């Protein structure tokens, strides 16, 4: 069987973001494999360990994504395909470009993150499924496969669902799916020799980003001491919320 994780590279959530000329400037940010995609990488490796076959990493993004691809290979995936594209590309167009590669690879399972930590988009997995005409399960917290079928548990707006579907299929990840492993030193050494096939993409984005800004709302920062007289602090807080903020 063949298992594919579609991954991206994003700024670490703890990283400080800068804006330069109306755009987020990532030049001084720490860039990492998207943590939601990390669940996808871990899952394809586990599926391969259990069912045999091959685990493949597919990425679509700028040259710098190679670092995240190497991380995924160091975790244990077999090989990678990197479609190189600089600049913003909307998820629908990305899905179109990725579908071409995925169709050629013909995997049984495709996994990708439930939400991207840079664009806050949840669209890539469902759009890939549409492009391939496959079913999709979003926000997956458990996945088992057997004889061409998958059984998965996934989160809804309220609650959860257990579903059964035939493969091939696309799954997007949610925390709880697994605990991603750390790349080991031998893993990192081995990853250096693994194949990353690169190909250019010529896709044009349907959506244009015009401007980005960080407006940190100035917070009031009014702190009350509730260590000595919690009652008095609580009464004062409720009064402030009622009379000053007028929110209760």
């Amino acid at each position: 069987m063949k298992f594919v994780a579609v991954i991206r590279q994003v700024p670490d959530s703890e990283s400080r973001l800068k804006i330069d000329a109306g755009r987020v400037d990532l030049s001084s940010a720490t860039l990492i494999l998207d943590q939601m995609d990390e669940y996808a990488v871990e899952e394809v490796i586990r599926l391969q360990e259990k069912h045999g076959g091959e685990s493949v990493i597919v990425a679509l993004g700028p040259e710098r994504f190679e670092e995240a691809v190497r991380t995924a290979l160091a975790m244990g995936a077999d090989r990678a395909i990197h479609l190189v594209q600089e600049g913003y590309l909307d998820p629908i167009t990305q899905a179109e470009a990725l579908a071409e590669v995925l169709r050629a690879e013909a995997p049984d399972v495709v996994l990708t993150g439930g939400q991207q930590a840079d664009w806050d988009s949840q669209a890539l997995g469902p759009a890939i499924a549409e492009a391939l005409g496959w079913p999709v399960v979003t926000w997956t917290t458990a996945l088992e496969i057997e004889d061409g079928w998958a059984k998965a548990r996934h989160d809804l707006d309220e609650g959860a669902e257990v579903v059964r579907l035939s493969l091939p299929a696309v799954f997007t990840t949610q925390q709880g799916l697994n605990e991603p492993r750390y790349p080991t030193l031998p893993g990192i050494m081995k990853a250096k020799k693994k194949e990353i096939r690169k190909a250019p993409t010529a896709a044009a984005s349907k959506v244009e980003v015009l401007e980005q800004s960080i407006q940190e709302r100035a917070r009031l920062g009014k702190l009350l001491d509730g260590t000595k007289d919690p009652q008095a602090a609580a009464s004062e807080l409720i009064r402030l919320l009622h009379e000053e903020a007028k929110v209760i």
Partner: protein
Amino acid sequence: MILVVLEHDGARLRKGALEAVTRARQLSALGGVSGVVIGENLTSVAEEARRYVDTVYVAEVGAYTAEKWAAAAYAAAQKAGAKVVIASGGRQSRSWTPRLAYRLGAGLLEDTLETSTDGSRVIASRYSFLNRVTEKQAASLPVVITAKPNTTPLAEPQGEGSVEDLSVELPPAQVEVLERVTEQKKGVSLTEATVVVTGGRGLGSPEAFAGVEELADLLGGAVGATRAVVDAGWRPYGEQVGQTGKTVQPGVYIALAVSGAVQHQAGMNKSKYIVAVNKDAEAPIFKIADYGIVGDVHQVLPALIEATKKLRD
């Protein structure tokens, strides 16, 4: 023509549907507004929906699956000749709207805060980078838009539209639901609530959430939880606020014994007012708080409940 996919709970339109209608009217330079209701037993929802739009298409397709919703919305968009499709932005619609956008060859503007048009494009603002950045995007028609809940005034009814049955060519079912666990929520939903009271791991036990619930009830709000609390199994996943949970933007967000990790902030940092109670004065949550009490939550929370009751009397 603009098509609104009107979300409902089986009996009534949801608030998000009325927000989406307002968004559609704001784009009236691009055409009139039609709607589609999708699901089962839609007669009463269709009656309500016709008061908001010129034509309501009724797509009886049974229980929800992403494929069915995408197919029904696609059929309605074709029938209405819609170049713009708007839906409210819950997790459910964010899983079928990409399919619809792909099928229509449309750009997708996800989880937008505001939308406007310059006559040929739709321009939208939205948050990105875990809610830390506000960005403006533009897409030419056709375009599919999801509207972030709680961002837009609710539409008023405006007449009597017509109702039309829509035949939808359904793809063979690809996903079979074996089991559905719906969390029975009393009161307001987390993403629509104007007050959210969230408990963190510092509460020490699931039992301590009785106080969180009581305070939320008194304030007419909803209960939230941090990832650590949900991971510990103290509260259901549906209450989780943060990067991998829900994003909320209430009038006031009250964080009780929540330290305030970046991943948590991603789900609540746009709240109008942020209130924190924590015994650690150095907790990151205080850096983004408008009001806060440094103190033991086990003493402060009962005092907050008491003070709120007094205020109500």
